[in-house]
């Protein structure tokens, strides 16, 4: 279960405060606290070419199956984040926030561990299980930590560029016959060969991702979307935006102070990027520009794709 304890209250909002439950009353120290469970289960890619894959994943719901990707972790610059992991799987796992935490020790099957860290700077981070030669990550044990500017302002970071709306796009890949079917049945994956046949946008094929309100970048024309891109897979992905050039503001944690624009951004496996995209009137696709990565087991547009909607 996820408990957010991060409430800002000003005198002007006293009336609103009266309407919220008592336990949400102001707390001086901002902090975010999460409890996640590691589980084995299945994950379904809908639409033509889709399939149900065996996966391992994080979830914040103790009575549900794994989520691919895992729950979004959210915080603000300088906050303390506490994450408790219950490993309810039969194998050892770990939890590493790339560039933030350094403890790579395993959590034995049936055990739990609590990680506490202060988020260093606003940005977008990949968390994953780094064990087992990429098998654990490939099986679905990944997600994103979003660190926002302090004070809840719509800026990419304190003093940074403004945006009107934001989306998190976690892209990834899965090799069903050679990795998920094998590892999911307790076998040993031959990690030298990796030929993923599923390419996911926020855990979905494009047929779903082009209709998912949390994925489609939609707003009034002229509004600026901040897109936080996380490549949790093993293939580099070159994401092509129709309609407008984006401005790259963060290349894997490196903030770009000078304006650099593009229509295709290469997000290397295991890295992140942030772009600002001005919406344009109409409906346009955003898709990866590598042939097979546009497909679900060969079916066109059920791979890494979504929409950019200005209306």
């Amino acid at each position, binding site marked *: 279960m996820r408990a957010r304890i991060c409430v800002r209250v000003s005198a002007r909002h006293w009336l609103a405060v009266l309407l919220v439950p008592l336990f949400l009353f102001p707390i001086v120290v901002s902090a975010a606290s999460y409890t996640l469970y590691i589980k084995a289960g299945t994950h379904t890619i809908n639409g*033509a*070419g889709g399939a149900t894959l065996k996966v391992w994943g994080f979830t914040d719901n103790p009575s549900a199956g794994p989520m691919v990707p895992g729950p979004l972790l959210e915080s603000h610059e300088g906050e303390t984040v506490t994450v408790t992991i219950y490993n309810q799987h039969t194998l050892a796992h770990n939890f590493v926030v790339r560039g933030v935490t350094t403890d790579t020790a395993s959590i034995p099957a049936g055990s739990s561990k609590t990680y506490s860290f202060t988020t260093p700077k606003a940005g977008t981070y990949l968390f994953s299980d780094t064990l087992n030669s990429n098998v654990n990550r490939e099986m679905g044990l990944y997600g994103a930590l979003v660190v926002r500017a302090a004070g809840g302002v719509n800026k990419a970071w304190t003093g940074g560029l403004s945006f009107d709306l934001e989306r998190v796009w976690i892209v990834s890949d899965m090799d069903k016959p050679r990795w998920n079917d094998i590892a999911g049945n307790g076998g040993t994956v031959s990690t030298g060969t*990796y*030929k993923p*046949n599923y390419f996911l946008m926020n855990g979905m094929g494009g047929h779903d991702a082009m209709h998912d309100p949390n994925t489609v970048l939609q707003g009034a024309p002229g509004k600026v979307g901040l897109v936080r891109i996380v490549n949790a897979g*093993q*293939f*580099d*992905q*070159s994401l*092509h935006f*129709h*309609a*407008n*050039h984006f401005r790259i503001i963060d290349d894997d944690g490196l903030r770009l102070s*000078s*304006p*650099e*624009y*593009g*229509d*295709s*951004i*290469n997000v290397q*496996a295991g890295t992140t990027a942030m772009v600002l995209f001005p919406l*344009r*009137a*109409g*409906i*346009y*696709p955003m898709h*990866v*520009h*590598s*042939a*097979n*990565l*546009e*497909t679900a*087991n*060969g*079916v*066109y*547009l059920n791979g890494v794709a979504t929409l950019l909607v200005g209306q």
Partner: protein
Amino acid sequence: MNRKLLTMNIGTALAGMVLIMAPLTPVAAARLGNATVLNAANGVTINVQSMNKTMSDGKSVLFWVWCAGGGGGGMGGGGMGGGCYPSGPTLELGVGQQLNVSLSVMMAPQENAPYNGHTIHWHGLDVTQSEDGVPETGASVLGDNYKFTVDSRYVGSHMYHCHVHTVKHLEMGMYAPIIVKAVNSAGAFVDVINSGGPTYDYEWNLMYSSVDPAYHSAVGDSTVFADYNPKYFLINGNEGRSTSAPAETVTAAPGKKVAIRLLGVHSVNTSFVIKNASGSSQSFTVHNKDGYKLPSPQTLTSLNLSPGQTADVMVTLPTTAGSWYPQVTFKNLRNGGSYSGGTVYTRLNF
């Protein structure tokens, strides 16, 4: 093959004219390379033809390629159309001038529904939805007329390609450069690398593509399209597997400035370098990425281009005669390892 050759004599003569006439009248820089070049504002009709191409291992691969008819009349094109080849014909468009391109799919090779027909997507030009060439958002696949203008931010390299079932159609060869050019008050092209940027004496487009022959025979929702195993790597539609058999050889005058436009319509990773005859990497300056001016030019000796990206780079040739070998190494998406036979060489004589 029906490619219009621009002779090197003309190129050299034009370079001389630039020297003499540049202070008075803008004179177009010489286009290097074999591609037909057409002015997209003059009314161009694009159609699609089949072409069997014999590859370096003797095997034949079927391509579907753009061909041009209609007006055009740009440098090197002469309005005669043609250009039927992977990576051709090149279109050029002046800032503020209206592109006028018709796509005809009559007699075109095509797939069955739902992937029948073809479109043109103006990759990097940020056109409106009605001109975007995407069937899923309403574009006609049965032929279309495209009209739009672009502003000075777009001076640089862009691409036009089919956007029907792109997992196959892009692979089949329906791609080519579209170059946005600055114009003077009389509407003539001005040879600057970007708006306010430096001038050049020659320009040369290098379009990268990769070929998995299985994609050329598979159709529809085949599982072939789940896995990509490129066997051939092309620049301007040609393999160039050694410095002695380059994909394209061009000649420019020593000491001159050459704009090299890199256009990535390939499906894997790449790295571009320029080597001299003794194998030393030569530096070059990157001015634009994805057809947009960089905040400041970057001088590099190696440049990665991912699928869908373009870059405009410039070099100044040595003043003594010689050859350089601009080359692209294609790398896999998993770990960046180079493909076997994955380096494509070109040759730039001066």
